[in-house]
């Protein structure tokens, strides 16, 4: 495995501290551009690692797992949906360092991890446009103020945290399966990251969604048609998850 491949992978699959620079880049982007970056950023690294012979050194895999755990843990403290999504992405991408796989499978896993994040980013954008920010301290009470957006946001968080039948669920299952025969530490790191995503995602939903209705706000929900389109998109994502099931497992 050559140095250029490793450098490309370190940037694309965000090893710490390079991940901090990538976080800065993600922070500057918004809208479809940010969503696109969340979907495709890990592809070059995953493809590069899969295309060459041999596996990355163990110490690099260990750094990758620690990077993932570090950012997943940071997610617990995130109160802004944008920040949280960045942290989930920065903890998901390094997981692709684990194990050798054919290029097609590597691309499928990277996309399966990235697509739910991209979709969630678009939903978070929708909240920001209507309320100024998607921040837990704003006490948005989305469930009452914007029920459609709230429903989409909950779906987005569940999909991003690799709940079934999101594509990321099957990607995580595939990653754990690929690692289960070897050292115990890598699968445990994978499971640890998965657990922290769920916890931090539920905390974010708790900050943004429930709460008693207010009279001063309201009328800022998505119109019915785009909302139904969004729901359809999530149904399609679930369908993609089932396809990924067949492809990866």
């Amino acid at each position, binding site marked *: 495995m050559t140095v250029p491949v490793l450098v490309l992978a370190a940037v694309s699959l965000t090893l710490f501290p390079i991940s*901090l620079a990538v*976080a800065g880049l993600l922070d500057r982007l918004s809208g479809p551009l940010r969503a696109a970056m969340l979907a495709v950023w890990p592809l070059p690294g995953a493809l590069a690692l899969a295309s060459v012979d041999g596996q990355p050194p163990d110490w690099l895999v260990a750094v990758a797992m620690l990077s993932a755990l570090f950012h997943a*843990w*940071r*997610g*617990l*403290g*995130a*109160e*802004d949906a*944008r*920040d949280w999504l960045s942290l989930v992405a920065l903890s998901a991408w390094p997981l692709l360092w684990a194990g050798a796989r054919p290029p097609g499978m590597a691309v499928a896993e990277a996309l399966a991890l990235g697509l739910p994040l991209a979709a969630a980013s678009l939903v978070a954008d929708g909240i920001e446009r209507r309320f100024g*920010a998607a*921040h837990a301290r704003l006490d948005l009470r989305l*469930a*009452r103020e914007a029920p459609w957006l*709230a429903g989409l946001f*909950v779906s987005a968080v*569940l999909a991003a945290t690799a*709940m*079934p*039948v999101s594509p990321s*669920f099957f990607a*995580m*299952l595939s990653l*754990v*399966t690929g*690692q*289960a*025969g070897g050292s*115990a530490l890598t*699968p445990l790191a994978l*499971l640890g990251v*998965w*657990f922290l995503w*769920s*916890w931090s995602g*539920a*905390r974010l*939903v*708790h900050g943004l*969604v*429930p*709460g*008693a*209705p207010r009279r001063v706000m309201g009328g800022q929900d998505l119109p019915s048609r785009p909302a139904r389109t969004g729901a359809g998109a999530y149904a399609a994502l679930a369908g993609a998850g089932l396809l990924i*099931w*067949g492809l990866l*497992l």
Partner: protein
Amino acid sequence: MQIVLPLIIALPVLSALATVALGNGRRLRVSRISAAFLTLTWLLASLQLWRAIAGTAPTGPVPLFGWTAFQSDPLGALMSWVIAGIALIVHLYSRRYMAEERGYTRFFVLMNLMTAALLAMVAANDLILLVVAWHLIGVFLYLLLGLDLTSREAHGYAIWTLVTFRLGDLPMVLAAALLFNSYGTWSLSDILAALTADPAGAQVLGLPLPTVVGLLIALSAFARSAQVVTHLWLPYTMDGPTPVSALMHAGIVNAGGFLINRFAPVFVHAEAALHLMFIVGLVTAVIGSVLMLTQHDIKKSLGYSTMGQMGFMIMECGVGAFSLAIYHLIAHGVFKGTLFLGAGGVIGAARRDDGVPAEDLYTFVVERQITRPRRPWLAMATLTVIVPAAILFVTHYVVEQSYFDKQGAIVLLFFGWMTGAQLIFATHHMRAENPVRLFVLILFSFAVVVLGYAFIAHVFDMFLYPDPAFRAAIYKAAGIKLVYFDFFVVLLTVIFVLGWIFAYYSERRRLIGRDRTAALRRLFYRAAARELYVGDVMSGASRVLVGGARRVNALLGGR
């Protein structure tokens, strides 16, 4: 007829879709659609169970378009029937109970999906399908517990549940991955057949595969069945709608017992996992029962009661009584579901009449009646120790004489003895018009319950595990060296007898105002009322983790 099994799982999913598509938000129509589909589901599940009992149902995998597979077997048929039945009752109950609640359609959609996930879990022959269903149950429960979107508190407890369930989901993922890596298939029946044929074949990190997988499956079952340390979600999730509580206590929390039974062939070769189950189940049963008795909040008390029962269920698995655990989870499900669904009526009745019996002083001073003398303590204590032991021994001897050859069965008899003694002893404290008649009735009821329990447990054994060699193998795996077992039996007996003597002297000394153990008991009561500080430790750990993450985020420039 292979279509019946997939249909049982598909119908609740179709019901969820039809509820949204055809209900148009009209409450009556929504509930009618849902109830109709669930009735059909239950009828099909009944047919499936009937065929399994009659022996006409084909046993083995039922492939679904070559993509996944279900398992047609007695365990799945029985559990499907129980789940469909409880779900139907909860649906029918909810039609009127939820009528004035917000999110009526959402509630029925989620209940349908939850039912489908539970049915898929018990019917899965594909490990991936099992893992997916296992995860989905946690997700749907999280959404159902947070149904009231105005209550941040309810949502907070829903998070607790989700996080605990995730903690239990992940060992199962690892177990599935290890099994796939070792046997190259996701088919549960193929894996279990291969493992039974060559149990010592595969190793993980130098340990036998069945031991590692057994421990991982046990961990998953512990989190789902509220075993000690992972139990806090259960007593704190009473803010959800009552029908959800009923389904949760009757059908979801029991899933741990089912999972252990599904992987029974693994546990035949995983003695360590069985011993761990026994210890964790025992500790959970004791702690759950103690906390149940010391809570001031009736709902929390019910939650801890379920925790205690789940402890017994896991303990039964730990001693090798797998089919008994299934019977226990069904009996507990029916009993606890009834309790929750009847809660509204009980509250209404309590508002009319509190039902608290008059105190002796009240009876004597206000009603001018002489209070009836109670039976003497020591005689009652002796009677309560001997009578239940005799009943238990005779009934089990009548039902199955080989029962006494199994170590696990003898351990369970001790708990039956203790429960019976406690029950009969409680009559000593009860005030009745005719105490002797009450005592005889309770004694008779106990005998009937024990006989029924022993007989039904025997029938379950024959139905779920018809191969006597397999049953013997599970009991053997759960056994320990005879010398340790004898020591354990003597220890239990000594604890039991000393406990009675302690109770006797404490009561007498308390009556004459010389109770030296009062300070110790107060200390214990304070700790139990505070739920043994488990919640405080968990909350503290959570605060440290979240606070640390916030500080690091602030340093690195987060919002």
